[in-house]
């Protein structure tokens, strides 16, 4: 049977000749929220970019399987069509391309049938309400001149419209004030459904107060060193990463 989960096997990745991921084994299940935590520089974002197919990241060995496909053999656009989605930590500003024009093009690209314009407009309005952004948002150029909070809202708006089956949220909480954080987290919670898996990448426990994880994994120096339930996030909150970093050094 073809697995509906995202399965990462012994993944080794380097960037510009430097090894960042040193054998990641991880399964992200549909219908669940998995959290990936770890200190800065542990390789969390490298994993996110690698899963989405950024050309700068070189896969030295390993496999990533999703819906019967070896994801690593696909281009970023094919991965999106397969149902993968990455919410960027630093979304790009694209001059002259309106949010609405972009989202319609992207939606038609990932769906087999183009959506009629009135139906799209209705969908977009509904999702914009969910993220508490006004109608003008749709006409603005994608991320251009957006505040940190607006950029993250735009990312989750894209997720809401594209309805992926496996969403990776890379540091979605960074640069957000507490009100924006709540809105963005509520937006994500609203989208959770049995047909979608979510990987929340975060440095801090803060976001996980709003988006409750089913599983928590801790990454240190390019390896998963601990996995557990949401109590693991609380443990990290009280004791920090230091002890685990030391343990990882001993093992390495």
């Amino acid at each position, binding site marked *: 049977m073809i697995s509906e989960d995202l399965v990462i096997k012994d993944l080794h990745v380097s960037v510009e000749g430097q090894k960042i991921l040193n054998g990641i084994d991880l399964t992200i299940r549909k219908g669940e929220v998995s959290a990936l935590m770890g200190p800065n520089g542990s390789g969390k974002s490298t994993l996110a970019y690698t899963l989405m197919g950024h050309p700068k990241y070189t896969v030295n060995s390993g496999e990533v399987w999703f819906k019967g496909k070896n994801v690593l053999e696909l281009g970023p656009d094919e991965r*999106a069509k397969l149902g993968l989605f990455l919410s960027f930590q630093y979304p790009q500003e694209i001059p*002259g391309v309106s949010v609405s024009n972009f989202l319609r093009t992207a939606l038609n690209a990932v769906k087999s049938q183009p959506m009629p314009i009135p139906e799209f407009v209705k969908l977009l309005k509904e999702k914009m309400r969910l993220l508490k952004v006004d109608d003008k948002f749709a006409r603005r150029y994608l991320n251009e001149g957006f505040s940190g909070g607006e950029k993250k809202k735009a990312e989750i708006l894209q997720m809401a419209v594209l309805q992926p089956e496996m969403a990776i949220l890379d540091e979605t909480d960074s640069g957000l004030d507490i009100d924006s954080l709540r809105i963005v987290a509520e937006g994500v919670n609203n989208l959770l459904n049995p047909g979608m898996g979510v990987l929340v990448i975060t440095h801090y426990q803060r976001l996980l107060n709003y988006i409750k994880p089913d599983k928590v994994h801790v990454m240190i120096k390019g390896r998963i060193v601990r996995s557990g339930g949401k109590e693991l996030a609380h443990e990290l909150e009280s004791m920090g990463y230091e002890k685990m970093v030391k343990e990882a050094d001993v093992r390495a």
Partner: protein
Amino acid sequence: MMQQTTQKAKMTPLTKVKSGSAEKEKAKHLKSLNELPMPEERQEAWRYTNISKFRLNEFYPFDGSAEISVSDSTGLKEKGVILCDINTAFNEHTDIINRNTVKNNSRAYDKFTALNASHWSNGIFLYVPKNVSVEIPVNASFLISTKSAVVRNIIIAETGSKIDFIEDYSSDSGEECLHSCATEVYAGADSKINYYHINNWGNNAGNFTHITGVLDRNAAINWVSASFGGKLNRLRIDTLFNGEGSQSENLGVFVGRSREHIDITTNVYHNTAHTTNNIMVDGILKDSSSSVYRGLIRIEKAGQQTNSYLSNHILKIGEKSLGNSIPALEIEANDVKASHGATVGQVSEEHLFYLMSRGLTRDEAENMIVQGFLEPIISKIPSEELREKIRGLITR
């Protein structure tokens, strides 16, 4: 393609006539054509265009015409508007022509100018009388299906008049052809002209188009140009601010593909005080295409209280593409505001990855970035129909 056919249906062909006075006028320039040397790349007006490779003599005797169609002008006749073949105008309206052409104090004259002046075969003449507002845009389309076509147009808007003029040029095939075009636009005092120029050449066409706008007191010309195609596609727009308080905006976009070379010049000459100019020309270079943009702002001693701005941005998509930008300021007056800015940049891989991560193929992502890059200019074009037409040509 569909659009062009429907537009053609509404258009009527402009018949060419013979004109003795036109022949006399042309004969004056024959000597210059023979005596003037071919321009060279080291000359300022030809920098970054390898003109020595262009074999002008292959198009001898330069005797072809353009197939010209114009929009229905029956309603305009009652208002005294004249829309006819340029030769007809030289037969019937020499007084109007002479009264205006004398105002053209442009010093631009070289072998290609002389070629046009000595060989023009047809073109349009458009005249808007004093205080007449033409509400519906006048359309003219020029199709080149001969080896050469030499065109001359004269557009005159008298004092207090108002007109929108839309012209589009294209060639029929991928065959080698030469198109030479000289257009003079005379904006009388307090007149307002919106001038839209679209060209879409086959990839073996050589185009040399020179448009000169002459502005009287408080006149306004707003130029919009969109250039596509051509082995050598040269468009020069000169704006001569001869009357105090005159103003002009010049918006331009271009896209180069395969091995095309796009050559754009926008020169402005502030010959008098209180004049205003704003130029924005942006371009895209795909594949192995190349371009040069030259933009001169010249402010004479008499040009006090002038505001003049120029910007040029080029986005390179093709790794082998080459973009050149030469903005220049020559300022003789001491109480003016003038500036220029130019950038040439490569499309960002991070932008491409971002869009592709949402499901767009590389081609779709590139197209979206290209369209977005030109959108700040396109969104300023006041006609929705033209915006859509230009967007269509950009992503063709």
